[in-house]
Structures are given as C-alpha cells and as structure tokens.
C-alpha cells in the first residue's frame, strides 16, 4: 500500500434515483460458481468501493455491469435497462457506462487525442471539431493537455491511466467503473491517478471502484463492499468498515493489507 495523504471525507452526492439494480444475480464460468446471489442497488451519485482477496469475483462483478461478461441468473438493470441477450440494449449500456482497467487498454496505434475522439466521433456521431474540443477539455482535467499528440507507448503508466479515464469521460457516461486502476502503477504514480479520481467524485459521478487503496476509499466511498469467494460478505460506511469490521473474513483480509 502506498501512503495516501488524502484525508477528509467527501460529502455524499447520492440521490434517490436508482442507477444500477442487481437482484439475486449468479454467474458461472463453466462449473465454477463465481458470483453468488449478488444484491446491490446503486443510486445516482453514489460511490462504492469494492475490495476483497484476489479471485473473489470483484472484476467479474463490475464486468457484468457493463456487459463485458454475461450473467446466467437474476437481473442486472442499468439506468432502467435490463441486461440480457438484446444487442440493442447492450450497445446502449456500453455508451452509458465507462470503464477503466488495470492495464489501461489504450489503443497503441492511435495518438492520445485520437484515443479520446474515436468514441465520440464514431459512436456518438459528434462533429470532429467538437470532439477535439471535448477531448482537450478532459485532458485538461486530467492535467496532461500537452501530451495530446503522443502515442500511449511514449507515456508513463500514471499518465496512460489518466488518459484512459479521460477517454471514458469523453463518452459522457452516467456511471464509471474502475477495476484496480492503480494496481499496475509504480508507487509514485498512484497519487496522480487517485487525485484525478477524487476530483471526478467531487463532480457527483456515480462510481464503483475496485481498489485496495484504503485512504482513497475513506475519502470518496459512500460504502465499502467486501467480497470473498463470490459472496458480498460485508458492506458498511468506510469508517465503520475499516475500524470495526464485523465478519471474521473481513477482519482477516484487512489485517493482511493494512
């Protein structure tokens, strides 16, 4: 863990409007039961942090939410649309839900600016000039406007991850998912990415973040969720979660990472 200097809890931005609703959702990989009877409701502006041991199903859960993976039982309803086999719905969901990966997944053959404008131009059918303007605004926000003409391979990991965040934001998503966004980064770059994410939280974005950065979790999370072996074992307000974990599996996990 890197020592984070982020302190002070952000005010909750949660409203009563439901953005994501997951009911009794189950997922298997072949015979392997990855997610078990998951129930979760996320309101507009609400921010969740998910933590748990490796292999507990955290990535799978958030990948199900933007339809990168199919679930087999139960319902996932995102922004009023039920995920299922309907491809039209899937296309819609993908543009509503932004996702940031551990390995950035930038497009190495395109410049940073092209990475950012591709979605708006080809999917949102935005005019090129407007797309560039939006892209530059977000690059400004993640503090690397001067890198617009570089290729991803020429940037540091922290910079690439900030570009990845900007790329998602360019699609004006309603929900942002983060899958261990700082795990692949050198310690000195973690803070620059977390700072950007805190600023994003301040704008009232609905966020689900898989991370083990406890300082960050305390700052932004409305609630922290602990997963183990496909179950949601415990969920609580961040302070209570870290200071008085109730379940013994949570206690064991926290004692390992803190």
């Amino acid at each position, binding site marked *: 863990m890197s020592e984070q200097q982020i302190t002070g809890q952000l005010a909750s931005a949660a409203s009563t409007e439901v953005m994501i609703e997951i009911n009794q959702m189950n997922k298997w990989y072949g015979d392997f039961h990855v997610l078990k009877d998951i129930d979760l409701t996320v309101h507009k502006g609400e921010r969740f942090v998910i933590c748990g041991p490796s292999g507990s199903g955290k990535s799978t859960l958030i990948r199900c939410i933007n339809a990168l993976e199919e679930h087999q039982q139960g319902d996932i309803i995102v922004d009023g649309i039920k995920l299922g086999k309907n491809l039209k719905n899937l296309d819609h969901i993908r543009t509503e839900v932004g996702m940031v990966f551990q390995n950035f997944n930038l497009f190495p053959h395109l410049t940073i600016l092209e990475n950012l404008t591709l979605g708006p131009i080809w999917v949102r059918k935005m005019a090129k000039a407007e797309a560039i303007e939006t892209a530059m605004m977000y690059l400004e926000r993640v503090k690397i406007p001067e890198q617009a003409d570089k290729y991803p391979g020429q940037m540091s990991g922290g910079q690439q991850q900030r570009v990845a965040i900007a790329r*998602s934001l360019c699609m004006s998503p309603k929900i942002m998912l983060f899958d261990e966004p700082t795990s692949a980064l050198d310690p000195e770059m973690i803070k620059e990415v977390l700072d950007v994410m805190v600023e994003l939280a301040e704008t009232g974005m609905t966020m689900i973040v898989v991370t083990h950065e406890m300082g960050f979790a305390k700052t932004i999370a409305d609630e922290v969720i602990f997963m183990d072996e496909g179950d949601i074992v415990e969920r609580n307000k961040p302070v209570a979660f870290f200071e008085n974990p109730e379940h013994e599996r949570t206690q064991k996990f926290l004692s390992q990472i803190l």
Partner: protein
Amino acid sequence: MAIITKQKTADRPAPLSETSVLGWLQKNLFSSVFNTVLTLITIFIIYLTLSGVVVWGYLDATFVADKRRECYDNSLTGACWAGVIAWLDNIFYGRYPREEIWRIDFGGLLLVLWMLPLWLARVKGKILIGASVIIFYPFLAGYMFTGGDKGWFMQFMVAGAITAFIINMTNMLVGLLKNTSLDVFLMQLFGQADAGDKTQRNILLAMVAALFVVVFLWQASWNVTEVVWTKWGGLFLTLVISGIGIASSLPLGIFLALGRRSKLPVVRVLSTGFIEVFRSVPLITVLFMATTMFPLFMPEGFVLNKLVQVIIAVILFNACYMAEIVRAGLQAIPKGQFEGAHTIGLGYWGTMGLIIMPQALKHMIPNIVGNIIGLLKDTTLVSIIGLFDILGMLRSISKDVPWVGLHKEPLIFGAVLFFIICFSMSKYSRHLEVKLSAGDKH
C-alpha cells in the same frame, strides 16, 4: 568507505575492433587460423563461380544475332542473349498487338501515378487514395487492356475512375505546393472556409458531380480497339493474374478469418471448411479443377473464359492462406484491446475496423509480403494449363525456329527478373515494418 570515485569518469573512444573496417575484418574473418583458412576457401569458391558467370554471361556472350547458329559462330562457350533480346517484347507483353502495347505501359504508369501520393508525406487523405485505387483502378486498367465497346456499367466505372484520378492528382499537387488537402484548399479559394460542415460538403459534392459529368461525356466517345485475352501474355499476364489475386484475396481473406473466429456456428464451420479444403490441395490441382470441372457445374451455354477461371481459382486459393495469416495476426492482439473498444461503445465492425485490424495488419506485413511473393512465383503454374505467362513465353523461345533449343538463357533471364521483383518487395516490406513500428513502442 562510501565514496568510490570523486570525479565523473570521462568517456573514452571504443576499441578499434568496434569501429574500424580493419578491426571488423580481423574480428569476424581472421580471428584464428581455422577461421582464416575458411575465409580464404570461401573467397576462392566465390571467385570461381563469379568468374565463370562473368565469362559465360558477358565476356564470351553474344548480344547481336539473328539466329542461334550465329551465336555459335561467334562463340561456343558464351551465352546467346540475342535470343532473349529478340523476344523481349514477347517476354513482357505476350502476343499483345505491338501497336497497342502503349496501353499496357500507360496502364502501368497510371497505377504508379495513382499510388505515388501514398509515399509523399505532405499529401493528405492517404486512406481515401488507397481506397480509390482499389475500387476504381481495376476498371480503368481493365478497359485499357481489353478495349472494345463499353457497356453502360463500364462507361460509368471508367468515368468514375478518371474522375477519381483527376481529383487524386490535383490533391497531390495541392499537397506538395500548399501542404494542405484539396477540400480545404478549395474552400479557402472560394472563401467558404468558415461555412458549416454541411455547406462545405454540399459544395464539394456538387463539384465532384460536375467533374464526373464532364468526364462521362468526354469518355463516351473515347474507345480503344479490342484485344482478346488469348493475346495477353508474358510478364504482363503474370502481373495481371497475381495483381488481381493479391488485391482480392486480402479482403476476402480478412472476411474468412473473421468468419473462422465468428460466434455464429454456421459462419464458423463454413469458413473453416472452406479454408481447410483449399489449403490441403496444391494450387495446380485447383487450377485444373477450375478450368476443367468448373464449366461442368455451370448452366448450359454459360462460358467463362479460361483467364477468368484461372483468376477466380487463384483468388480463392490465396484467400485461404491470407485468412490464416490474418487469423494469426488477430490472435496476437490482446483481449484488452477488444474490451477497451467495447467500453467506448464500438460495435463489432467498429472494433475490428478501427482498433483490431489496423494493429493486426501491421504485425502481418512480413507474412503478407511473403505470401505476395509466393503468389507471384506460383502464378507461373498457369503456363502448365496453357496460358502464356512469363514462364510460358520464356519456354516458347526454344521452340521458335531461329532459336530452337535455346533453354538456358531465357530461364536465367526469367530467374534474374523474378529475383529483382521479389527481392525489392521483401526489402520494401522490411522498410515498412520499421517505419510503421516507429510510432508506438510498447
């Protein structure tokens, strides 16, 4: 003791063995007695071979003669290049009427001019230029080579091709002189640079349409005489077959490869079956099948000429190899790229066309060029089924009365010609690889 040295160590020049020619020679060729002996023996062998070649092929050779006898009268131990020289036109153009040969040269020149902008850094719109050459050039060239009456479709396509060519050339000039693209330049010229996207597009479309109409009216009265395909031959025919083969088999191969990776079982099984069948059969078999069996399946009275049959066979055969090259290239792209594309909302075709293929094609260049070279060489098989491609022409020289029995020289000439073409392609592909990978270092 913490401090090892107080001063910065100054840079010193590298040892001689790393920088001088003599040093290199000593290190690589004469480092030991054994190595020295090997080097000397090798030099001797090279000398023997080369001197033999030079004496036979140049010093003792005959370049001017009317028949093989005269070559012998001149020298018994030298090559008889006179036969090759007398047949040069046939080797390059087959039995294409001599007074029409300019059409082939002109067609080739058009292709070079058309593609020229692709190599010029200042010219904009490379993707459009590339697309226009693939879509339009074949029709213009096809008409140049075949001639005869144009049907309404051919009229349309020829006019389209000429229009595209004119736009392309103007765009190249504007790029070279003004360093901008043609559309931007025109808008500035007419003071419309600040007009909305829609207005600009409409003005440009109107101009293209006007140009097309003018060209269409002009080309309607333009005709060249017909040259039937049986008169096509030589290197020209080889290049036509392999050129069409290459240009069509890459796109077809891409679709087959995508089909083979498809989630839809029917598409997957059909593509896989098609690929595996064609890959397990030698090209010559496919060629025989195409020319002898294909007509049996066709409705009565439906005759495809042999050249078209051969070209279709070559395309199908080669597309299967391309498909496997493309598939290997696709497999090299990490799953994260698909997921990245997914999260910005790109669908299947957007993901493939904008994200996956551009990266995969770059990895595939060496294999694709290898395949192109292979196809160019394999095309000589068509001489076996009676087309007079370059190999067919080279071998006919020995049956021509004045040059009867002249085998060696034509075949050596052909080999050198192929070597030059194939070697430059492979060199160029190396260059492309380096250039394309310069942008992104992972």
